[in-house]
C-alpha cells in the first residue's frame, strides 16, 4: 500500500467536495428539523429530484462533449403541451406521448444540426430556443393550463411498483444506463474525446458531427419525456411546467464535477450533485424559507459549482504534472524531451 501524496489527497478532497458538502447539508437540516430525516421525507426528496435527475443525465453528456443545452426546460414544456393537446383531442394517451416525444426529438435535432453542422455557438443557439419554445408553449395555450388529460395517462404519474414510485425507478434505471454508456461503451469514450479535443477526434476519423447531433437528440427526447412525466404527475399541463429545469440541470451537472469545458465527468458525481440540489430545496421548504429565496440559493449554488469546477481542473492538472515529473525524473537521463 503506497502512501498517497499531498497532491493525491488534495485531488481526492476536491473531487469529492460535493459529497462532503452534501453530508454537511444533511446534518445541518437534520439537526434543525427532526422531520427532515424521516423515511417519508427521503422518499419525497427522491420523488422531487427524479425529473431533474432524468434531464440532468443527458445534459451531463452534452457538457462532456464540449457543448451545452439551455433549451431543455422549454422543450419539456412544449412537448407536454403538444402531447397534452393530442391526448385531449384524440383521447389516446399513446398518440399524445408519441407526439410529445417527436417534438422533443425534433427540437434536439435542430439544436444538434445548428451546433454540429452549422457550427453556431451552442450556448447562444440553445438559449434562443429556451426563449422560442417557451414562448411557443405560452402562445399555443394562451397562457392557460391544458386539462382533461385521459385518466389512463395521469394514473402513470402516481403509479407505484413494489411500493416505489415509477419516477424513482426510472431515475435509478437511467443512472445505471448513463453509467454504463459513459464507462463501458465506445460512444461514451467518443463523447469524452470530442469534448477533450474536437480536432484530434476529427483526425481520428470519429464522426464528430454525428456524435454531437445524437447527444442533442437524446437530450431533446429525454426532455420531452420528462415534460410528459410532469404532466402525468400534476394531472394537467401547465404552460410553464418545465421552467427553470435547464438551470437546475446545469447546476447538478457542474456541481457533479463535469468540466464545463468538456472532456471529463463521472456519473457518481452527478448523483451527488443531484441529491445536493434536492436536499437543499427540500430542506429550505421544511425550514419554511421563502420560495423566492430558494431560487436565490440555487442560483448561488450554480456559481459555487463553477468555482468548484475550476478548482477541480486545477487540482487535476497539478496532480498529473506531479506524477509526470516524477516519471520523468525516474527516466532521466534518457527521458524524452519536447515542448
Amino acid at each position, binding site marked *: 500500500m503506497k502512501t498517497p501524496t499531498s497532491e493525491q489527497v488534495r485531488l481526492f478532497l476536491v473531487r469529492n467536495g460535493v459529497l462532503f458538502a452534501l453530508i454537511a447539508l444533511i446534518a445541518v437540516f437534520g439537526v434543525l428539523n427532526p422531520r427532515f430525516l424521516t423515511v417519508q421525507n427521503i422518499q419525497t426528496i427522491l420523488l422531487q429530484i427524479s425529473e431533474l435527475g432524468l434531464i440532468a443525465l443527458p445534459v451531463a453528456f452534452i457538457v462532456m462533449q464540449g457543448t451545452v443545452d439551455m433549451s431543455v426546460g422549454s422543450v419539456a414544456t412544449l412537448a407536454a403541451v403538444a402531447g397534452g393537446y393530442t391526448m385531449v383531442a384524440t383521447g389516446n394517451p399513446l398518440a399524445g406521448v408519441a407526439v410529445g416525444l417527436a417534438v422533443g426529438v425534433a427540437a434536439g435535432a435542430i439544436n444538434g444540426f445548428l451546433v454540429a453542422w452549422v457550427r453556431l455557438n451552442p450556448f447562444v443557439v440553445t438559449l434562443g430556443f429556451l426563449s422560442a419554445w417557451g414562448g411557443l408553449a405560452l402562445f399555443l395555450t394562451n397562457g392557460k393550463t391544458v386539462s382533461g388529460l385521459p385518466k389512463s395517462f395521469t394514473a402513470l404519474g402516481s403509479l407505484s411498483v413494489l411500493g416505489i414510485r415509477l419516477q424513482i425507478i426510472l431515475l435509478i434505471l437511467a443512472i445505471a444506463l448513463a453509467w454504463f454508456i459513459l464507462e463501458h461503451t465506445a460512444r461514451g469514450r467518443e463523447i469524452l474525446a470530442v469534448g477533450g479535443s474536437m480536432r484530434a477526434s476529427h483526425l481520428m476519423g470519429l464522426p464528430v458531427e454525428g456524435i454531437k447531433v445524437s447527444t442533442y437528440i437524446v437530450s431533446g427526447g429525454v426532455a420531452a419525456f420528462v415534460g410528459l412525466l410532469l404532466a402525468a404527475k400534476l394531472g394537467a399541463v401547465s404552460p410553464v411546467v418545465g421552467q427553470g429545469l435547464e438551470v437546475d440541470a446545469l447546476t447538478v451537472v457542474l456541481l457533479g464535477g463535469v468540466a464545463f469545458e468538456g472532456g471529463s465527468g463521472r456519473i457518481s458525481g452527478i448523483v451527488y450533485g443531484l441529491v445536493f440540489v434536492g436536499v437543499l430545496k427540500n430542506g429550505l421548504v421544511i425550514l419554511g424559507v421563502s420560495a423566492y429565496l430558494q431560487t436565490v440559493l440555487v442560483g448561488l449554488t450554480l456559481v459555487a459549482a463553477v468555482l468548484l469546477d475550476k478548482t477541480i481542473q486545477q487540482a487535476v492538472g497539478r496532480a*498529473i504534472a506531479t506524477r509526470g515529473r516524477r516519471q520523468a525524473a525516474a527516466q532521466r537521463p534518457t*527521458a524524452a524531451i519536447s515542448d
Partner: protein
Amino acid sequence: MSTTSGRSEARPAGEEPGGSLPAGSAGLTNPPGTPPRIAFADVSKYFGATVALDGVTFEVAPGEIVGLLGHNGAGKSTLINVASGALQPSTGRMLLDGRFMDSPSPAAMAEAGLCVVSQVPALIPGISILDNLFLGDKRRSTRAQRIERAHAALTEVGLGHLSLRTIASQLSVGERQLVDLARGLVRGDIRILLLDEPTAALGLPETANLHRLVRGFAASGTAVVYVSHRLPDIMDICSRAVVLNAGAVVLDASMDGLSLDDLAAALAPGFTKAESTTATPGEIVLGVHDPDPDGLELEFRAGEVVGIFGMAAGIEFDILTAAFGLGRNRKTTGLTFDLHGRPFTPRSPRQAIRAGVHLVPADRETDGLAHNLSARDNVMLPWFGSYARAGAIGRTTGVAAYEEGRTLFNVQGPPGTHSIDEFSGGNRQKHLIARWTLPRRPELLLLLQPTQGVDVGGKNDIIRAVQEYAAQGMCVVVASSESDEIMRMCHRAYVVYGHRHALIPAGADMEGQLLSTLLALAGDAVSTGGQAS
C-alpha cells in the same frame, strides 16, 4: 564564450523612459568588461513529464546576431517564451546587462527594451496601425506627438508610405511583422530583438528587406536572437550559432568556419545511418499527380519507406494532409491522388481511414492526442467501434492490441490506464504511432515528422518499428523538413519545393544530397521567378 563583437550605448536597462530612436544614435565602442545584453544562466523549464529546457546557458552581447537553431521540440519556443517573460523558468535565471531579472513579466521585459517579432505578428487585426503601435502604452502624450513618433518608427522600418489609419488586417504578413518591429521602436530603444521564425511566411524580397533592417539594428547596438528552421537564413545573417537539442545547448560557436554540414550534424547528434534499408518495393500504393506537366509526380510503393523532404511549413505536409481528406490549400489545389491505381479523393479523415490510409499528424499535442483520456483509450479510440462487442467495452477490450504496441515500440511509463499526459513526449509519440498501426493495419501509413521532439532512444524504437512494417508490405511515407529524420527512416526520398521535385533514389548518399538538392530547387524557383513556398 564569444561575447566580443558589438557596439553599444553602454546604458544599464531601465534608465530610458525618454524613448529616443536607436538607429545611428549610438556609436560608443563597447568597453571591455561590458556585461552581455541578455544572458541565460542554467535555465531549465519543465512541463509535467517533459523537460523543455535543460540547463541552458548562453549570452548575447550588444550588436551580436545569434542564430538559435534546433528541431521542433528542441526547446526554441520555450526559450523565446522565457526570454519574453511569458514563461517563468523552473530553475535558473536570466540576466539583462549583468543584472538578474527576478520575476520577468512580458511588461517588465518590454520596459527593458525587448521586442519580439514572431511568425504570426501580435497585432490586433481590426484596428489601425496607429492604435496598434500605442496599444498598452501608458505614457501621456498628445495625439500629435503620437503621430510624429509613429511616423518616425514606420519610416525607420521602411513602411513610411503607409497611412497610419490603415487597418492592420489589410497588411501583408511581412508588413505586419514590420509594424510589430515599429511597435518596439515607439516604446523606446530596441535593446534586445527576438525574431521567432520571422521568414516562415515571407517571400524572398521581404526576407532580404527584413535582414537588412536587422543588420541595421545590430550595428547600432541591439542584441539579436534569430530563431529559424531555415539554415540558409541563419548562414546569411548570424554571427554566431547556438544549437539546442533536447532542451540543452549542444553547440555555441561563431559562424566563421561553420559549414551547413557542421550545423546539420549539430542538429542531429548520435546520427547513424540506418542499417538494412534495402527495400523490396511492390506495386504502387499512392500516386500524386499535378495538372502541370512540369509539376509534382510522386509514387509510393508497398514495402518501402519513402521520404518527402521540404522547407519547414512547406508543401511536404500539405500533400499528405490533403491525401488524408483534411482539405486543400493554395499549395495543394489541383493535385490529384490515386490509391492502388484508382482515383482517390477522400473528403474527410474518416473516409481516408476506411480506405486504409492512416496519418500521424505533425502536431502530436493538439492534433493527435486526447489529453483527457487514458493512454490505452488514446490508442484504441478510433477502433472501439469495431473492437467493442455490441458497442460495449469490457475490461479486456483492446488490451491485447495495446500491450502488443507497448512491447513493439518499447514504451516506458505507467500502466495504460493512466492519463496519456503522464508519459513523456517520446512515449506519447509512440502511443500515437501505435494507434495507427496496431489495432488495425493500414495499407498506407502517412507520418508527419514522426520523430520530432523524441529522444534518441525513442527515435530508434520508432524507426525500427516503422521499417519492420515496411518489410511486412506496408507503404510508409515520411514528410519532414529535418534531413536527418528522412535519412534515418527512408529508403528513398523526394525533395519538394513549391511544385518542383527531385528524387534521391535508393542507395544514394542521402546525407549530402537532401539539403543541397533543396537549395538547388529553391534557387531554381528564384531564378525563374517562382514563388517561395
